[in-house]
């Protein structure tokens, strides 16, 4: 019995202490910073203020926030649409193939994401591979101008975040007992219904994890839209970066980050609540 408590204590304390010192503490510092004034020569003036938050109620910020949200939601939907069938098929393969396929999906991401983005440029550019291919096939007569548009940056985001959707989905679908589907079909459910009512609810934790891992980082990624989109618009990531680096306004940069965090928490909270109710209905 003693050793049971010991395990519990060890397991909880290791992660707790680690995250308390290296995650919570920095986060609290950011929170504190968001209530300070911007200093002239030092980084902060030690005067409490809420100006960094009131300042955010302006059309520029709301516009940028909205645009970022739209971009990340589109990215997430595309990742889910591409990733779910993929993880679904993957999970049904034989064990040997499964592991190999899993490695195959992660390998491309062991190269620098920057260099990969530049490789995408090589494909999309005016005289690039895609245009040459389409021109040779006579599918188009003028080269497409995809590069340095929001479409290019969307392509880059989906490409870079896809594994963050696939891996959690795979992790939940892998343990799924496929006999359940057979049973449902035996009971007369058609394929789609069996999928929708059995597979999807069971893989819900994976979907939620995947959505979180894609949606949240997508809100603040800045260099992919910069490189592929031509930096012609500002997303939240750029805004925060600007405040920290260009404007040296750490308090404002901090307050934007905090607002973002709380907004996201709210979003996920609402989703959880909604999801719980739905589950109860199902049961």
């Amino acid at each position, binding site marked *: 019995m003693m*050793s*049971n408590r010991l395990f*519990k204590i*060890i*397991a*909880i304390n*290791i*992660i707790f202490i*680690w*995250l*308390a010192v*290296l*995650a919570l503490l*920095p*986060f609290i510092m*950011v929170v504190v910073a968001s209530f300070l004034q911007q200093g002239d020569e030092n980084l902060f003036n030690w005067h409490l203020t809420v100006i960094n938050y009131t300042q955010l109620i302006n059309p520029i910020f709301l516009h940028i926030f909205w645009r970022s949200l739209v971009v990340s939601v589109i990215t997430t939907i595309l990742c889910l649409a591409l990733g779910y069938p*993929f993880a*679904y*098929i993957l999970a049904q393969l034989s064990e040997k193939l499964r*592991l190999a*396929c*899993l*490695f*195959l*999906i*992660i*390998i*491309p*991401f*062991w*190269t*620098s994401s*920057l*260099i990969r983005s*530049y*490789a*995408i440029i090589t*494909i999309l550019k005016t*005289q690039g591979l895609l245009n040459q291919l389409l021109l040779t096939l006579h599918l188009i007569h003028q080269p497409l101008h995809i590069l340095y548009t929001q479409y290019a940056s969307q392509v880059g985001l989906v*490409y870079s975040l896809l*594994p963050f959707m696939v*891996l*959690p989905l*795979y*992790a*939940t679908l*892998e*343990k799924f007992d496929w006999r359940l589907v057979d049973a449902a079909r035996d009971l007369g459910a058609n394929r789609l219904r069996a999928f929708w009512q059995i597979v999807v609810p069971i893989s819900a*934790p994976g979907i939620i*994890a995947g959505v*979180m891992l894609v949606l*949240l980082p997508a*809100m603040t990624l800045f*260099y992919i839209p910069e490189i592929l989109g031509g930096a012609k618009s500002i997303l939240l*990531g750029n805004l*925060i970066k600007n405040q920290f680096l260009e404007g040296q306004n750490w308090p404002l940069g*901090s307050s934007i980050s905090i607002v973002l*965090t709380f907004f*996201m*928490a709210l979003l996920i909270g609402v989703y959880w609540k909604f999801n719980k109710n739905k589950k109860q209905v199902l049961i």
Partner: protein
Amino acid sequence: MNKSLSASYLAFIYVILYLPILVLIVFSFNNSMFSGLWHGATLKWYRELFHDSGLQVIAIHSLIISFLASTVATFIGLLGAVALFKYQFFGKKLLNGVVFIMIVIPDLVLGIAFLILFHALNISLGFWTLLLAHITFCIPFVVVTILSRITGTDKNLFEAAKDLGANDFIVFSKIIVPMLIPGIVAAWLLSFTLSFDDVVISTFVSGPDFQILPLYIFSQVKLGVTPELNALCSVILLLTVVMALIAQMVLKKK
């Protein structure tokens, strides 16, 4: 689902995933310093690469950091995920919250917060700060991935094992870990990928005498993506793949 349809879908995704990689490898032989169009083949970039001993050191640094960081993060994150799933304890909500915050918080803000923290704790920047930071930003991804796997498993299983006289350590190592292996592998891979590619946080926690690859690449890109950089990435890719294969073979033998 239809078998050939499934296979062609897998193939389709893999083609998309590998197309940029293929381009990258092909262009590492491109006989032009800056152009993104094909100018004939050459091996000179690889020659330059193999003569660059400084770069090799940087690559090794990066592999060490990412390997250690993802392994430690997977271990801590696994314990955390199990604790979050299995136990009720004071501060559980807080722990959940911190994990969530760590995923949402922009890398840049986290990097700067780390920098100030290390300065306040009087830890000089270098290997250790990099490692600590990398472990920390990987942990939440591990927790989320493993939790998504663990949720829905039967808690009674553990109780049954306990009734048979197994203590928690044994339950953990003999039941939980084997059951979670796919989740653990996925989490480790995710961590390694994150760590191996992190520019933003590393920028702020790296010191004067320990350079890592993503930072080198990032600053190098300012001068344009040269075929040498492509060659570097191709070689690194080959290296990691070979290591992954060896690891898999070793695991299989066991």
